[in-house]
């Protein structure tokens, strides 16, 4: 319902900077609208001027590796950081000059920042009391019920588990019914299982209260699970913006392709067009790429990166190559490694087009001949191929994804 401005695959290649073109007349103002918002510290630019619009009621994720500027962006929305350029508007009102305590937003901080000298009840009531609201008791009790902490109102924060502290932090922010709730890596300190559980919990709460959530995370799975719209940030810029499925299927850059899941990127040369498809050749192999899914305007002789996700590929033993239907993209190779993960088996295939093609095969009927060293043929539906500008770093986002993965481990 809230997939704003997700560019169709055929959009112009400059959509890495998401546009905030004028909305349809009469539309409600966006919950958050950032215009040319940027931050630099001396000569270091933490956030390049960016434009971003978050529709009211949506669950929006800012995704990126550490140091990409996502937290700085969030802090500028909260008013905790002063922008170097640009403006922040909440619900159509410019709040750039307002201090944090005058903005209708609340934040769930990375390590919760619960007040250690106040009990759970007083922590949650803090915002209401500061605004002079009378009769906070009922509201607090109600909010604690929502986050399932009913019996713990008189505990001090240090007597709670990580997950409970996290829910107090959410309750403390939500009770003020902010226009926007900002979440700064709220699940980063939890272990994997609890994190999964809290993801669903947060999503449930968001659906229940209908407040706009802006969620900062380095965990791509978390972003895709929870958010309606994800903005992938890299080095202080928004690389791509869209619905999770759209970002995954149609990455606009090698960074997004590698950071969000895994992609096989094949360097290829355009040889011509046939109908709505581009025909490519890579190491003598003919490949087909739908022109609409190519992010770069290239003519015959130009170079592109043809990408395909590992789970889209079918793997057959070399002996069965004749059975592959016509019209599929096919690449020969040799298995160099495999890993059994239960649901599926991951293979690494050395092929002329790319030395390390990754393939994920669901464990339905396992072919015992598919062992390291076996000759194989990979084939996939050409419609699942996407094309990227070959001028970029083919490995962009690989290290970032790795860093983020390591960082996601619960801090010792």
């Amino acid at each position, binding site marked *: 319902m809230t997939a704003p401005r997700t560019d169709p695959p055929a959009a112009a290649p400059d959509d890495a900077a998401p546009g905030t073109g004028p909305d349809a007349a009469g539309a409600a103002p966006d919950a958050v609208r950032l215009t040319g918002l940027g931050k630099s510290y001396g000569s270091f630019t933490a956030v390049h001027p960016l434009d971003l619009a978050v529709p009211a009621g949506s669950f929006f994720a800012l995704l990126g590796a550490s140091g990409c500027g996502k937290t700085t962006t969030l802090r500028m929305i909260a008013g905790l950081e002063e922008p170097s350029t640009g403006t922040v508007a909440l619900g159509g009102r410019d709040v750039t000059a307002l201090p944090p305590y*005058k903005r209708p937003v*609340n*934040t769930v*901080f990375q*390590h919760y*920042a619960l007040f250690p*000298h106040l009990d759970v009840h007083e922590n949650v009531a803090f915002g209401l009391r500061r605004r002079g609201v009378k009769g906070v008791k009922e509201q607090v009790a109600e909010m604690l019920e929502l986050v399932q902490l009913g019996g713990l109102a008189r*505990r001090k924060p240090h007597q709670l588990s990580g997950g409970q502290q996290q829910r107090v932090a959410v309750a403390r922010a939500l009770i003020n019914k902010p226009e926007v709730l900002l979440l700064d890596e709220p699940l980063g300190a939890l272990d994997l299982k609890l994190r999964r559980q809290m993801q669903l919990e947060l999503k449930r709460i968001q659906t229940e209260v209908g407040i706009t959530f802006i969620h900062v995370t380095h965990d791509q799975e978390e972003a895709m699970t929870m958010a309606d719209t994800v903005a992938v940030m890299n080095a202080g810029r928004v690389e791509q913006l869209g619905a999770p499925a759209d970002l995954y299927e149609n990455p606009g850059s090698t960074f997004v392709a590698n950071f969000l899941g895994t992609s096989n990127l094949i360097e290829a040369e355009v040889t011509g067009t046939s109908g709505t498809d581009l025909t490519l050749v890579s190491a003598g192999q003919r490949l087909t790429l739908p022109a609409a899914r190519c992010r770069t305007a290239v003519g015959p002789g130009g170079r592109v990166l043809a990408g395909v996700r590992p789970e889209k590929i079918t793997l057959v033993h070399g002996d069965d190559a004749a059975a592959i239907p016509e019209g599929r993209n096919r690449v020969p190779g040799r298995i160099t490694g495999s890993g059994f993960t239960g649901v599926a088996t991951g293979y690494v295939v050395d092929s002329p087009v790319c030395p390390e093609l990754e393939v994920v095969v669901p464990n339905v009927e396992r072919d015992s001949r598919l062992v390291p060293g076996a000759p194989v043929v990979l084939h996939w539906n050409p419609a699942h191929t996407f094309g990227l500008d070959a001028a970029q770093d083919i490995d962009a986002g690989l290290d970032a994804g790795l860093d983020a993965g390591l960082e996601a481990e619960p801090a010792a």
Partner: protein
Amino acid sequence: MTRTTRTAATRTPPVRTSPVRWLRRNAVVVAGTLALCYLMLPNVVVLVFSFNQPKGRFNYTWNHFSTDAWQHPCGVADMCGSLGLSLRIAVYSTIGATLLGTLTAFALARYRFRGRGATNMLIFLPMAMPEVVMGASLGTLFLNMRIRFGFWTILIAHVMFCLSFVVVAVKARLASMDPRLEEAAQDLYATPLQTFWRITLPLAAPGIAAGALLSFALSFDDYIITSFNAGSAVTFPMFVWGSAQRGTPVQVNVIGTAMFVLAVLLVVAGQFAGGRRRSARRTV
């Protein structure tokens, strides 16, 4: 605590214990008790001799039991006057040093400014410098500035040497405080002033209290610096020192014991309140 250890002890089967094994198991308790005795013995002596009726002028040998000194604590000329002066100076210098020291600690912990490094270092100087040197140089300074020695010069001197202790105590507390707590308060609609009163001050309070208590104790019993800057004023430590030459009156023991008991009561009350708060938390 004691109850749990007792039940644990009864549950374990009785073991034949040699003295060596007993000592090994209770070494910490034994060492602790010995250290405590070492610390407490002088206080006990002072307490016991506060009930003495000395034969001559010197209260060094036991004569016979009497509560005279306790009934007339101010029976000695000038003693209670000096005690009052000492208490007044201790209270004022505690207030002054705590206020100034807390502000200094906030400035040093929170802001980057020119001269911050130097201030950080110089603040330790009064703690490190021999008191005689500090007292003498302050005395010279006051003399050269033609300031009359007395109450005010003592107060200024005391605020000066108490200040560094407050700064150190409060700074340590502030350093361990999460700056995000103040951001969270602001995010929850607290103005800067409310943030300070509701979050910053309560969290810094233990450090401030520690600094204040230290100041009071240091100021109350200071002799060396005071004697250089007192002029004709006589504080309690100066009185005790002076009278020790001629024979200490028993009332000095009374005041000493009273101060000691008061301090112990305060600490016990503090522990009791803390323990009650903890156990209340546990039962919730």
